[in-house]
Every structure is written in structure tokens, then in C-alpha cells.
């Protein structure tokens, strides 16, 4: 036992020594209205990222109104009591900045990247958006059509564009992850003006948001400005709906074929995994890395290179606030039967279940993680978002500095255990995306 203990000790020492990640300093506090503020100062470049993350995503939607959270993201660029229609982006771009937003299953994220002397402009615009956004009928009608085009462009007119939607709808029967963030166009058509107002009053409140700022500014001065712009926004008074439904544990494999116009068969296996932050989540992530990160990874080496069954084969997790999915995803080479491809993928997963990975292979995974974390905090925009993410999902902003340790703590045994526990037939959905003549003819 002594011997084993020694090995563990040297491994830990190695970890501490090799962690080359730069420490990210930050301060954080709450305003009285519940707005959480995170500030990270970095004067390398005279720019600043002003971001607001709202804790609302597609999973908070009424099942009769799917797509609302994402649609709202579009509407909240329309203006406010003090900002005319279309002027939101105009102010930012005229100041030499860029802006955008995106919506996930769990949250909606808005950001502006500005020259540092325009920080206050960003605060004004974001506080206007939070305080009294204004949406006119014209804007609603226009953005409804724009969102439809977004859906056509991203899903309907893309090869394998329905992959994600099909995977989620097959994997979830109860949990709101079963619908897509873009949602249903019929639902959006049916939404009444009063519903929009209620959605705004419920979710777009300071106590449901994180203001995260990173870049070239002075923390003390900025605190005063934040106070001036945000503290007068009243706290929300409505209860914020958060889904409590727990997806029932799968007891039998779900298997289906999706027919479409794309020519090469594509095989997706989706396994249910714990929420992001769970110890097992990190073990699953390391397992995916083993399977598909780099040319020497198991799937790339065996399925793509040696057996030449696939044009691409990968494994990755959807880290989500509630228990999510981990996927293997492989596109067959021409003339390859998808079941042959699936078998080859399964063989590699079984190998992980049966044989402990070598110490060298584990070290490779750790080196890859380290490299990723070092590169991960290269831009102030990325840092602002990561800080908000860690706070929103885990209540621990400092994970930006310490999450790497959770990955590095994963052992070979943990990886084998994760494969055995989660990569089981009864825990998965298997979908074949296959070519169909009728679909190809547009029927």
C-alpha cells in the first residue's frame, strides 16, 4: 500500500507543478436589487467586454410557447424607453464596438465589446435593456420572420440540420430539454403581446442576472457607475419558474432512423449523464477526450484511420445545468453500413470498460486539458462569459481558476467506471440518419 500511496503523491505533485494556467483575479458582489456583479481588470489592450447573463433559457419556457427565450433575445435589441428602434446596435458600432447575444437551453447571454473609454455606454445600454426595454409591434413582426429565416438557415437548409433536434426529442420525454431553443414557429405566431410583457417582467430582472465585465477599466470607478446605472432597477416580484421535472431513468434503449436527403449515413448515440459540475461529469469528459481528441484518440485511430469506416468520428458532452447528454457522433464513409460503423464505435467503448487506460495515455489527457485551459482565457470577452457561467451554474466564480483540478483529479479507474456506468445500451438513444430518395426529391 505504501507503494501506491507514493505514486498518488507524485502524481499530485506533478499536477501542481505543471498547471501553467494563468490565475484570473476578480471581484464580485451583489447590488441590493439582487444583480450579481463580477469584475476582472486587465489592461493589456484598451478594450472592455460588458456582458449580462440572464438565467433564462429554453428550459424555462411554457411548453405551449417554445422558442420564446430565443425570440426574446432578438426582441431585446429593438430598443427601450430611451433608445429608439434599431438604435441599440447603432450606438455600439458608432462607438467602435461589436455586440451580439445567444440563447441556450439554460441561459441568455448579451455582450458588447467596446473601446475602454466607452464602458459607460455599455452600462447605459445594458441597464436600459434590463430596466425598461420597449418592443413595438413592428419589431415583433419583423423579428418573427428573421427568426424563421434563422431556423431555415441553421436547420432546415443545412446538411443533417435536424440532428440536434432529433437527438434531444428522442432522449428526453419529460424534461424541457426535449425541445430546441429555436422552438416552434406556431408557438411564436400564437404568442400575445401580454405574454411578452409577462416574460420580460418575470425573467429580465436584476435578481435573475449577472453583470460580468472584463478588460481595461478601474474597478473602484466602475463600481460607482454600475451603482448609478443599475441600482435603480427594481427587483423582480414574480416567482421565476425553474423546471423541477426530473427526466426518468431510461430502462431500455431507444433506437430510431431519421430519413432525409443527406447522402452519407450518420450514427448518433446519446447517453444520459449527470449535470455539469458533478464528479462523474468530469470523468465522462476525460473519457470523451480519450475517444476523440486528436489523431491518436481511440475513435480517430481505429474507426477513421485503421478501419476507414468513417469520414469523422467524435465524442463530446453537452454540459448543461440539469442532467445532459454525452454523444458519440460518426459519419460513415461512402458505402459503409451504419451498423458496422456503430459496432466499431461500441468496440472502442467496450475496450475502455474492460481495460484500464495506461498511465501514459492518462497523462496525455491531462496535458491536453492543461493546454486547453491555458488557451481558454485568451480574450476578455471569453473571460467575462466564463466568470458568469461559473457563477450562474455552480455559484462558484473561482472555478475559472480551479475547475482544471477537477479534470486533473480524474483517474484511470474513474474513466473506466464512467464508461461502465453511463455508456450502457439501456441508457442511450441510437439514431441513424439515412438517405431517402423521397426526401431527396423534396417530398
Amino acid at each position, binding site marked *: 500500500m505504501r507503494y501506491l500511496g507514493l505514486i498518488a503523491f507524485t502524481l499530485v505533485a506533478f499536477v501542481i507543478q505543471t498547471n501553467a494556467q494563468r490565475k484570473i483575479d476578480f471581484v464580485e458582489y451583489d447590488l441590493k436589487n439582487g444583480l450579481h456583479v463580477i469584475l476582472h481588470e486587465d489592461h493589456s489592450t484598451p478594450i472592455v467586454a460588458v456582458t449580462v447573463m440572464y438565467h433564462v433559457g429554453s428550459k424555462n419556457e411554457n411548453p405551449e410557447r417554445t422558442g420564446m427565450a430565443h425570440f426574446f433575445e432578438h426582441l431585446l435589441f429593438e430598443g427601450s424607453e430611451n433608445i429608439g428602434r434599431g438604435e441599440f446596435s447603432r450606438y455600439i458600432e458608432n462607438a467602435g464596438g461589436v455586440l451580439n447575444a445567444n440563447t441556450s437551453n439554460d441561459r441568455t447571454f448579451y455582450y458588447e465589446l467596446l473601446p475602454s473609454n466607452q464602458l459607460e455606454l455599455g452600462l447605459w445600454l445594458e441597464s436600459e435593456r434590463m430596466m425598461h426595454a420597449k418592443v413595438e409591434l413592428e419589431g415583433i413582426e419583423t423579428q418573427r420572420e428573421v427568426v424563421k429565416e434563422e431556423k431555415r438557415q441553421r436547420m432546415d437548409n443545412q446538411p443533417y440540420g435536424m440532428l440536434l433536434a432529433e437527438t434531444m426529442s428522442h432522449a428526453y420525454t419529460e424534461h424541457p430539454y426535449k425541445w430546441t431553443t429555436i422552438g416552434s414557429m406556431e408557438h411564436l405566431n400564437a404568442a400575445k403581446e401580454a405574454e411578452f410583457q409577462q416574460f420580460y417582467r418575470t425573467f429580465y430582472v436584476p435578481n435573475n442576472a449577472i453583470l460580468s465585465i472584463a478588460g481595461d477599466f478601474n474597478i473602484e470607478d466602475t463600481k460607482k457607475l454600475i451603482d448609478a446605472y443599475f441600482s435603480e432597477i427594481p427587483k423582480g416580484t414574480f416567482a421565476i419558474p425553474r423546471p423541477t421535472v426530473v427526466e426518468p431513468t431510461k430502462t431500455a434503449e431507444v433506437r430510431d432512423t431519421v430519413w432525409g436527403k443527406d447522402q452519407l449515413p450518420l450514427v448518433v448515440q446519446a447517453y444520459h449523464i449527470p449535470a455539469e459540475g458533478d464528479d462523474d461529469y468530469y470523468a465522462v469528459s476525460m473519457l470523451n477526450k480519450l475517444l476523440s481528441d486528436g489523431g491518436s*484518440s481511440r475513435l480517430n485511430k481505429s474507426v477513421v484511420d485503421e478501419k476507414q469506416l468513417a469520414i469523422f468520428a467524435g465524442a463530446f458532452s453537452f454540459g448543461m445545468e440539469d442532467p445532459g447528454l454525452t454523444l458519440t457522433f460518426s459519419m460513415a464513409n*461512402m458505402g459503409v453500413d451504419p451498423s458496422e460503423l456503430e459496432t466499431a464505435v461500441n468496440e472502442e467503448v467496450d475496450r475502455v470498460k474492460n481495460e484500464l487506460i495506461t498511465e501514459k495515455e492518462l497523462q*496525455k489527457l491531462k496535458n491536453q486539458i492543461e493546454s486547453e485551459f491555458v488557451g481558454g482565457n485568451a480574450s476578455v470577452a471569453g473571460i467575462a462569459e466564463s466568470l458568469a457561467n461559473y457563477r450562474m451554474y455552480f455559484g462558484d466564480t473561482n472555478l475559472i481558476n480551479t475547475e482544471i483540478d477537477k479534470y486533473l483529479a480524474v483517474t484511470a479507474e474513474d474513466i473506466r467506471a464512467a464508461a461502465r456506468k453511463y455508456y450502457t445500451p439501456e441508457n442511450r438513444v441510437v439514431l441513424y440518419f439515412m438517405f431517402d430518395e423521397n426526401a431527396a426529391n423534396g417530398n
Partner: protein
Amino acid sequence: MKFFKYILPAIMLLAACSAPKIDRSKAPAAGPAPAISLGEYSTFKLDNGLSVIVVQNNKLPRVSYRMTLDRAPIFEGSKAGYVSFAGDLMKTGTTNRSKSEIDEAIDFIGGDLNTFSTGISGSSLSKHSDALLEVMSDVLLHPTFPEEELEKARKQALSGLASAKTSADQISANISNAATYGLSHPYGEMQTEKTTNAITRDDVVSYYNAYFRPNIAYLVIVGDVTVEQAKEQANKYFGSWKADQTPRANYATPSNPSGNRVVFVPLKGAVQSVINICHTVELTPGHPDAIAVSVMNNILGGGVFGGRLMQNLREDKAYTYGARSNVSPDRIIGEFSAYASVRNEVTDSSITEFLYEIDLLTRERVADSTLVFIKNFMNGNFARSLENPQTIANFALNTELNGLPKDYYATYLGKLAAVTADDILRVAKKYLKPENLNITVVGNKEEVGEKLSVFAANGKVEYFDMYGQPWSDLMPAPEGVTAQTVINAYFNSIGGMDQMKKLNTLVEVGKMNLGPMALDFTRKFKDNNKMLMVVEMGGQVFMRQALDGERGSSSQMGQTENVEGDELAGLKKEADLMYLNRPDQYGLTPVLKGIGSIDDQPVYVLDLMKGGALKSTEYFSVESGRRLRSSESVDTPQGAMEIVVDYSNFKTTNGYTFPANIKQLVGPQVIEIVIDEMQINKRLTDSDFKVD
């Protein structure tokens, strides 16, 4: 201490109340503009001619190496794809390492290594940089291009081509290049299944040997490294690389179309049209006009959300999720393009808006407020780009590659500030070609295709497949069916070849419906070499066309002219009811193209070729053998026009079956002939056919 306990919250409360009151009604003023400083870089050259650019940045403990070849573009022709194969295959084996050893070594240090046709790049944490360079140098200097790896790459490429068949974006990128530069230019040619299958290992090896030379290479090193270390590393890992002369090539400058053309690639079931409107631009990087052109492009639709295309097509009309434009200067030939994905039913309306916005720039001076807005945005772009240390490296590389003045980027913001609205109008007039556009669309042919003919100067939509070849949606004809069997079936449907030989004269009497008018129509045929067509209104001759066996004439409203040349030949062919049985007499070669459909009825499609050019296309019912349609392209003063003649309502008279309804479409004009009576082998004299 009690005192403090009470007073502290009070002070805090006071602080909260005394938060500076702000005026929400207007945007806050900006602070003083921050100084923008460009990072430093160093350059040096190795003895073998390798140029090295170093940007030291120690913020993160990582370093990247990117080596680029400065070579002329290559036209690959019948083996298109071999150049990219050479790039891909470099990292699949060296004299020292197998593919899996290379992969293992790079993955173990958490690094990455990429090889491509014009270079190689790698990055890692700085503590692993020697391990990275060890492999990188081996891959660059000693690749073996194993035969079996070529076969793997070929299989992957063929699968990739198959999967690209449903990618509207991918097809659009290819077809717009093909339309802009032409398939015989390096920028326009396409890799196909055929070219992919033709690639050999020799092609790949000779490309590598000819072009991977240090004397045309630039190595850019960025990150946690000193100039001294960089020098040491460059010499150690790339110093033994041998210099040699590399081939240069020149290409004819592609020309823009003389009028706007519409190039359409049908994509079944498409719910959006991917529009890409483009033309070549003669603009080199660093040209004195380049910055003004860049401002002009941003006004139209560069990265800025406030660009005209985005505001018009998205925010005003909601036709699209995004519409943008781009001007890319190039040392050989640059390109302008404007693009968006739009829903099927607004494709034509969207193109109208694109054309309006492009044209507007060349006609109207932009407002000063617009110019200031765009310049502010570009100023900010420049400043923001400096966050990434690669930007300085790119500036340095561009300066070297394009022979720019050393202070080109240091003085960029000054040059940007100096651009005026007059400059924008001048460069728009000079570089934008609103009347010489390639309007390319990938989308739904049935719902969109023909609606776009209005945008083409020649009134025609040109259909292509994803490889830029003329498009055909025909099914192959079954085995045993040939042009001759189709023609035989056609004559059988009339009454049989023997009956046809006995047909000496034919007279058709009926009405010609021309818009609201119904005119009296008579047509006579004799001996397969004489023909007369008369159209009358209330007994007055409106039109008369005659062929007496040799000469032809045509009169309209009293104006008479001789029919000569091609027109006379066409008339003679028309007079011969059996010309399809002897096409060679008219210089025609029938070619069976396959099976198409007319109103859900399967038809054989037969092209009549004359001297290699398409003369007309004939459509015969698969079931009955009857000819249902005939289409021909004719030159008119308005440009080429497509004449389509549809035959229907077949009637049998004395054992001969002919169409009683003949509908001719020329553009929007429809002429319908309804035959009331057919007379077979009625006695006619030659004088009936005398020419005027």
C-alpha cells in the same frame, strides 16, 4: 464599538442614496480615447532563405509556429485536388515516424499540428515547444507520402464530395468561384469525383518537391518566446532545409460578364436560396484605393450590423437572418461578393434589393454621418483586433508578402480617417460593376428558378450542376432506346413510316389566337419541300409566309422581304414533315438525352445538334411516341430568346394523327393555333406556294 456598529449601515445607506444621478435620456459621453499601440515584431532570414517573423508575447505560456509558402496559385486541371492532398498527406508519415507516431507525439504534449498545401502550423505550451518542433521539422522535411495514406485520403475526399451534395453553402461557394473566375482558372476550378480518382502519388510528391522550399517560405512565431530562442529554434529545426528555384505561373485575367447573368444550381427540396452576387475586382493588397474600398464595403455590408444590406434585407424587410458583402484584394485578381440566405418566395425581391444597394453606391455620395459611423466602427475593429498577438504577426507577414511600406499598419488609422465621401463614390464607380454581375443562386428550381430570368441581360437563367457543368434533371433512357427508336415511334404515332411516305399534301385550317384577337389561319404543305402559311383578319391578309421549294418570302402587314440564310434553311426543314427521318440532310445530329417530364408525363428528350451546337430540343411522349414539345433558341434584336412550342389535342384524319392545338411561347407572349380541319392529300398546285 457600539457606535460604529450603528453608524456603519447609516453611512452605507447614505452612499447608496447619493449614487450619482444619471441622465438616461441620452447616451453617456465617451472618455478620452485610449492610446492604441501596435506590438513589436522582429524579422530575420536564415541562410537557406527562410524568412522568420517573431512576435514575443508572454501573457500566456504558449507559442505558435506557422510556416506559409509564398507561391503563385496553381491550376490543377484534370487532377484537381492533388495540391491539397499533398498538404494533407505530409503528416501521414516521415522517414522517421509513422502516422500514429506523429499523432501520439503531438497529442501527448496537448499540442496541435496541421499541414496544408501552402505550409504547416503547430502550437503548444511553450514548455513543450522543442518536442513540437522536433515533429514539425520532421514532417516538413522528410514526408514519405505513403501510397496507402493516399488511398485513405481519396476515400475520405470522395465521401466528402458525396456529403457536400446537400450543402447549399458549400455548393454556393464553389459555383460562385466558377462563375467569377471560370473553371479554367486556379480560383474557379473544382475538385470532382473524376479529378479525385485521377490523382497519383507522383502528382503529390512532385508538387511537394517543387514548392516546399525555404526561399519562398515565411515562418511566423508568436507567443512566449524570445527572439534569441526563436533564432536558435529556426536554425536548429529548419536550417537544413534546401533551397531551390520554384515554378511560377501566369494566368489570363478572368473577365466579368458583358451583362448581368443568372447562374442557378438546383438543390432539391431547398427551403432557402443561397444568393451570392459577385464579380472580379482588380485590386491588390495595399493598393492606395484599398482602404477606401474597405470603407465602401463596410457601408454596404461588411462586418457591421448597421450596413445597408443588413438593415435593408433583414431589419426592414425580414427576408433573411443576415446579408453581407465582401471585397477581397488579391495579387492575381480580387473579388467582390454580396450574399445572403433568403426564403424561396422572396428570392427575386432580395436580388432586387441587392442590385439596388450596389447600384446606389455608384450613384450617390454617402452621407457624412454614414461615413463617420463606418469609420468609427472600423477604428474600433482595428483596436480590438490587437488583443490577439497573431494580429501583429499577420500585419508583419502581409507587409512582407505584399511589399507594403514598413509603416503601413502603423499609419492605418490616419489613412482611414482621411477617407472622404468623394473617395467612396470614386472607388464605388471604379470597382463595383452593377451591370456585369454574376448572380449565383443555389436553391429550389421549381419554386424559384424561372422567376430570376428578369435579372439576366439575356433573359435566361443558366442552370448548372454543383460542379459547374450544364444541368440536367433527366433520367437515363432504358437500354435499347436510341434516338432512332424514338424517331421511329414518333412516325408510328402519326400513322407509320409507309403512310408518311404517301403524304403528299397537308392543309390545316383553323384560328390563331393572339391575345384578345382570333385570326383565320391556314397552313399548306406539299411534297415535303413547299409550305405556305397565311393569317387573315376579316379577309385581309395579316401575314403570309411562303416557300416554293427553293426560295422563301415573308410578308407582314403589306411589308415583304425575302427569307434567306439560316431562316430559309429553317423554313425548308419545317416544310419537310419527315425531316426527323433524314436529319443529316439539314446538318442535324439527333442526340437522345434521357427521360424528362412534361405535366407529369414522361418524355424522351432529344437534342438536335448542328456543328456541335444545340439547335433545338424535341420532347416525345414515352407512352404514345407523339411529339409534345419543341424548343429552340433564336437570336432577336432583344438578345437570345427561347421559343417553346407545345403540341396537344391530337386528332386523326384519314389515318394521320396530328396535333390540333399548337401553342407557341416566346417570353411572355403566347400564340395559340387551333386547327378545326385537316385535309389530307388534297390536290394543290405549285402556284399556291409562289413567293411574293
